[in-house]
């Protein structure tokens, strides 16, 4: 078998960087193989992709040592035109910046123009590529108005249209919502079925990656630290945890059980998917003759709260673009009470109204009908400025708000606008920086910090206003597991100190681990509202809202009778299993 890619002793240092991004990589990729790349942020995954795509060293400069050989052609000895777009295609992380045509057709056929193909062939390939990603009939759409998943699928189609021998997908789903993610994954599956080419996928979503990869490598600090088939790699659960890579929940469960010496399980390897785990556990139960017992989920008791809600919405309606052609009703009669000290997650698909609802709490949006009362004030009667000292709103991307040269100035921006004394500003900034664990960062330039740290600066700058309620919009999107956990622990700590916290997220494992109350939105209405455990034990309603509960909850619902259907963490499932398997 020929090798598609051969990398020998590759090191690369970006111009002006202190540390090399890649340190002596040796890697061989066989033709037709799907290679998955895992690793924390900053491990050099993207740099490796750019090296294989030839953009390093041909477009980006730096110190380049070693060799990359593509189908026997050395990267440094041939011009870039030999490799792209005919031989190698790459899909980037942000769908917005790689679709630059005025319609989908232009984007997909862009590279074909440089190949000198006949007109008919171009048309055929356009249809072929659109078919694979399931977007036939989208030729004339303007890219900006497609959803994230659709955009990324167009980008994949554009990469495919040149019929490349090597396709590189660099975190194609990290900026997408769950629907977009599953759309992209099914496009990748369809691609594997119909068009065999060497494929390289960088991905944080391990659950999906293990389903279609032939081989995985794990990178850390510019080096390949683990390499092998998915089931081999996931024998090293501890090693992966240390690197900040989260194995699928069923894998963690299998690992715990195996370590405990549940005899029957150790004959097998650790399961990687829910189905595997289900079959293995079921066969163990059958062998031991354990029969299912019925578990009932307790309905939440309505605790009557004596205090006044800090935020209250009454029959809240919101209509975007009222009176225009593009009128959309985003909220349809939402009634919600939020009490001081709560820790709430808003979940739901994009367009379900989560962010619209949250923006009402700080007055960025005013109700079209109904009312929002924040801390006793009707938001229609006051400006954002009056609410900003009660409610702090932290946007998803810190890039959207950081503009000062030092962290101190950035955090002090809000308090300065309040017109308070210098001493008090200093006090507030110190307090806010301490709360997010960035003491001593005050003189640094926030533009040179990592994404996780920038996110913390953004939170600190909101905290410096001393709000009673903190709203955090998608704090973990596009972050690796380790950074996500640090961020969420920080938010949890704030909640424990008495702050009311509302966070919006798509990550159900995060919801299960942190939130105390969950509000599920669907099509502008509240579909479910209650304690986290209770919400996740309603699979039928969640299915309607297209939300998948965490893997472990899904597993325990499949094994209903053996496991409680409202299990929400690996530890809980493990304890339940141990209690009757070792009886």
């Amino acid at each position, binding site marked *: 078998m020929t090798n598609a890619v051969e990398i020998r002793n590759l090191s690369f240092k970006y111009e002006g960087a202190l540390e090399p991004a890649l340190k002596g990589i040796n890697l061989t990729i066989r033709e037709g193989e799907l290679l998955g790349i895992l690793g924390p942020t900053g491990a050099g995954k993207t740099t490796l992709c750019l090296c294989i795509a030839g953009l390093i060293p041909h*477009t980006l400069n730096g110190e380049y040592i070693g060799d990359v050989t593509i189908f026997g052609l050395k990267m440094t000895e041939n011009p870039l035109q030999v490799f792209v*777009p005919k031989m190698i295609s790459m899909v980037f992380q942000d769908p917005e910046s*790689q679709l630059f045509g005025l319609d989908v057709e232009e984007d997909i056929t862009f590279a074909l123009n440089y190949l000198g193909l006949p*007109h008919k062939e171009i048309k055929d390939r356009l249809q072929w590529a659109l078919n694979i990603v399931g977007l036939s009939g989208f030729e004339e759409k303007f890219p900006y108005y497609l959803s994230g998943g659709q955009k990324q699928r167009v980008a994949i189609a554009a990469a495919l249209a040149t019929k490349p021998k090597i396709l590189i997908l660099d975190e194609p789903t990290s900026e997408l919502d769950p629907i977009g993610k599953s759309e992209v994954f099914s496009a990748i599956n369809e691609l594997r079925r119909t068009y065999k080419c060497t494929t390289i996928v960088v991905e944080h979503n391990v659950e999906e990656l293990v389903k279609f990869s032939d081989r995985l490598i794990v990178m850390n600090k510019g080096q390949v630290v683990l390499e092998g088939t998915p089931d081999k790699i996931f024998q090293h659960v501890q090693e992966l945890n240390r690197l900040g890579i989260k194995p699928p929940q069923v894998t963690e469960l299998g690992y715990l059980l195996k370590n405990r010496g549940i005899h029957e399980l150790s004959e097998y390897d650790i399961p990687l998917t829910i189905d595997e785990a289900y079959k293995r556990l079921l066969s163990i139960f059958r062998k031991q003759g354990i029969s299912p017992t019925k578990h009932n989920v307790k309905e939440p008791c309505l605790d009557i709260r004596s205090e006044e809600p800090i935020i209250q919405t009454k029959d809240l309606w919101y209509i975007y673009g009222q009176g225009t052609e593009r009128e959309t009703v985003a909220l349809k009669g939402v009634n919600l009470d939020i009490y001081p000290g709560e820790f709430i997650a808003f979940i739901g698909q994009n367009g379900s109204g989560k962010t619209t609802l949250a923006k009402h709490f700080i007055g960025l949006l005013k109700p079209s009908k109904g009312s929002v009362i924040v801390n006793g004030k009707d938001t229609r009667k006051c400006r954002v*400025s009056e609410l900003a000292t009660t409610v702090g709103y932290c946007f998803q991307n810190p890039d959207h708000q950081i503009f000062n040269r030092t962290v101190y100035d950035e955090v002090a921006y809000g308090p300065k606008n309040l017109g308070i004394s210098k001493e008090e500003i200093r006090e507030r900034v110190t307090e806010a920086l301490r709360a997010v664990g960035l003491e001593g960062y005050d003189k640094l330039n926030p533009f040179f910090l990592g994404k996780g740290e920038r996110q913390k600066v953004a939170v600190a700058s909101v905290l410096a*206003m001393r709000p009673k309620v903190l709203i955090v919009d998608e704090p973990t999107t596009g972050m690796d597991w380790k950074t996500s956990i640090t961020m969420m622990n920080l938010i949890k700590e704030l909640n424990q100190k008495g702050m009311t916290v509302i966070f919006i997220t798509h990550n159900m494992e995060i919801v299960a681990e942190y939130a105390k109350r969950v509000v599920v939105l669907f099509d502008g209405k509240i579909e479910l509202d209650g304690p986290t455990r209770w919400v996740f034990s309603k699979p039928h309603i969640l299915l309607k809202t297209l939300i998948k509960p965490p893997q472990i909850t899904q597993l325990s619902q499949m094994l209903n009778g053996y496991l409680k259907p409202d299990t929400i963490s690996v530890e809980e499932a493990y304890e339940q299993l141990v209690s009757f398997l070792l009886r």
Partner: protein
Amino acid sequence: MLFEIYVNKDSFVHKLDPRVKLMWFFCVMVCAAIVNSAIPSGIVFAWIIFMAILAKLPLKRLLLLTQALAYLIIVCILMWPLFVKSGPTVFEWDWFKVTYNGILVGVGMGFRLSSMILASAVVFMTTTQKELLESLRTIKIPEHFVFATVLTLRYIPSLMGEWKTIAEAQACRDPGRGKGIVGKIKRITSAIGIPIAVPLIHRVAKMTNELSLALDSKGFNPNMRPIPYKELKIGRRDKAFAVVSIAILMVYILARFLIWPQYMWIY
């Protein structure tokens, strides 16, 4: 769509070759530029409205476009009579005098301004962006200019979206704006000030970086013209329309400079 002004209708004007439409636009512009009296500029205005009706465009939406410049047009109609003092007097009070010619020029100016807006609106409402770009290519505009235009049109809505998000994010930390006029001025300056400009530039720089990588990965070559999807062809209808437009332009030029200069341009 935020910036889409194209109106999808099946009409004579829609089917015209975009280059012929650009030529018509040029004719209208010259006509409107060389006359200043109410009647000839009114005829130019009527010509554009006639085209709009022919194109089955929604007139209400078309006139809404002029709303943005309504103040300017009204000011023109009111101010010009103060400067043009020739011709028979209509109204006189002390030093204040309004003449017949002054009114003609004022109204004419109103027509000229709205003609310029409406003519471009008619072209943009009946021609897709792609047709326009394709015609730019056929009249030998260098490819990198055309491609830059493509990118501009493509990324305007993205940048508007970014700008809106940044403005909202900063508003959450900026409660210090006063009431009344001071507050209003503060609000306007903060909408274009450093707190918004810096993150926006940062975002744009990031996006352009990624964009350039994506372009390189597709083998982008600024000197190579893409293969057109639809060959543009000039038909009999296009020719006839072009001849009529040029004829009207000729009549205007002759009338303005040779036959009735006194009626076309009033001093």
